[in-house]
């Protein structure tokens, strides 16, 4: 059966708006995906019928808000294939999640301990560990990147040592689209006694996961990339590990008892959720995951794989004989996320993005995509990125190529 992309796109009202008289062609989904109407409705219903703080109230609205918040946690647990909802910690986003893990896991680290990341990482999975190094004197090590934009695992045996405490890697690159072979890394990390964290910001939007099968100890992602609202993200962690970890932040909602000298904290996940959590956003995230899980996921995969191939093939064709366009990431036909980053000799990514927006209604992203070390490695100042989602249609790709022809003509 053919994937009915028009039926899916019709559920996103925002896609009907115009950009300077052109239809909107939204290809910036790796930064933020759009939200289906049912998710907005779920949040409006919550705000207009159940709005209250959670965890401590005894009145009706508070009880209902609490129930909605914990049901959202259960929905996330189901999406991730977690053992139980208590393994799901709500944060303000994937960035906050990684920072929280670096703070908590880092509390007993000392000089000589090592954290291993890669050169493929988003700044969100570099800077928290650099800050941990500043605080504790640990050693931060990097796995290199292959020419086709994957984490180079050839040196894995040497890079994960007996001193490695955490291996923290992207599950899928927001620049090259390469998907990390998590299983091989998990086995070695665990063999050496290290914790293994996956940054799932780019992979979580592509359907329900089985985090345990991935071999991860921790998995983080953001709501705003999985068709949910901004302002909320998730850490999934193995319960026995979360139980042993200290809180990263203190405040209301995370304590059992406080006196003027000390405190005792609650059990996970509440231990890690100091302060009033993003309640309405949790309701929205749950609605988004439920909605996504009910879609034709195999059809989406085939559809987006086809469109991604079209993007790569089209750029290659456009460049034939000119050799101005450089496409990052795995070559056409190999597994990758539905996003394509590329550079064009002599044309700045922001100039491409501007022309695409102003004249063709195509929303792209240009720059270093919060991955400066990776761009430095490639000797590029920045790239232009087209990233797809469940509602991306052939017409969006056609508009992209029409705009690219215009850019090449205009700036040559």
């Amino acid at each position, binding site marked *: 059966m053919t994937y009915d992309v028009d039926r899916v796109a019709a559920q996103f009202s925002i896609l009907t708006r115009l950009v300077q*008289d052109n239809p909107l062609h939204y290809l910036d989904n790796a930064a933020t995906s759009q939200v289906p109407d049912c998710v907005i409705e779920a949040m409006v219903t919550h705000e207009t019928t159940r709005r209250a703080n959670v965890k401590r109230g005894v009145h009706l609205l508070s009880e209902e808000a609490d129930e909605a918040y914990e049901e959202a946690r259960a929905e996330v647990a189901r999406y991730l294939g977690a053992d139980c909802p208590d393994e799901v910690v709500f944060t303000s986003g994937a960035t906050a999640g990684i920072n929280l893990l670096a703070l908590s896991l880092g509390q007993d680290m000392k000089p000589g301990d090592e954290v291993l990341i890669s050169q493929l990482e988003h700044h969100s999975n570099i800077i928290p560990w650099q800050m941990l190094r500043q605080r504790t004197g640990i050693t931060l090590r990097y796995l290199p990147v292959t020419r086709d934009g994957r984490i180079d695992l050839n040196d894995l045996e040497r890079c994960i040592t007996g001193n490695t405490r955490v291996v923290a890697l992207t599950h899928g690159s927001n620049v090259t689209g390469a998907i990390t072979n998590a299983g091989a890394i998990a086995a070695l990390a665990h063999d050496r006694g290290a914790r293994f964290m996956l940054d799932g910001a780019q992979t979580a939007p592509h359907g329900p996961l089985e985090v345990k099968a991935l071999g991860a100890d921790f998995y983080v992602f953001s709501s705003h990339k999985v068709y949910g609202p901004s302002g909320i993200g998730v850490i999934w962690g193995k319960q026995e590990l979360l139980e042993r970890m200290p809180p990263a932040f203190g405040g209301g909602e995370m304590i059992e008892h406080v006196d003027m000298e000390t405190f005792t904290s609650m059990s996970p996940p509440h231990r890690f959720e100091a302060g009033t959590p993003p309640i309405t956003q949790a309701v929205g995230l749950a609605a988004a995951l439920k909605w996504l899980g009910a879609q034709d996921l195999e059809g989406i995969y085939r559809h987006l794989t086809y469109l991604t191939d079209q993007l790569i093939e089209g750029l290659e064709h456009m460049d034939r004989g000119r050799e101005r366009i450089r496409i990052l990431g795995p070559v056409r036909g190999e597994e990758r996320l539905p996003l394509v980053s590329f550079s064009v000799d002599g044309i700045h990514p*922001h100039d491409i993005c501007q022309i695409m927006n102003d004249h063709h209604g195509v929303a792209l992203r240009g*720059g270093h995509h919060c991955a*400066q070390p990776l761009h430095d490695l490639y000797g590029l100042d920045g790239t232009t990125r087209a990233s797809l989602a469940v509602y991306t249609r052939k017409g969006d790709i056609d508009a992209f190529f029409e705009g690219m022809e215009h850019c090449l003509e205009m700036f040559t």
Partner: protein
Amino acid sequence: MKKDLYGDQILEWAERSEHMGAIENPDYEATATNPLCGDKVTIQVLMDGDTIRQLCCKVRGCLLCKASCVHLAHMAGGLDRTDLKDLRDGFEQFLKADDDTMDLPSHEMFSPVRSHKSRYRCVLLPYNAALKALPEPEK
């Protein structure tokens, strides 16, 4: 409808090569970057007392940034730091002003940038680098 951002004048200025490059023994030099996109402008300055004799730039940036850089280099001769600061602030006010409520004839070609807030940094980056290069007068 927004004005076309890439008018002929902008494209022409962005392609000009005078004042691009290095000064052999500059009196002052500084680099400013745009953290949003990683663009980088390096400004070198040769002085006559307190005023600029020559300003040269190296740009790793978009067309708007390049055009603004060359344009600034053309205008910089004879300015001191206070003049340069006034010029920069006036340019920023011009960008932020509602259409046609403020004239700045010397910068008229940048008027289409007014409706693209995300690009203000691109055209102001050379000014920020130049101000960073010139020492503030002693109080």
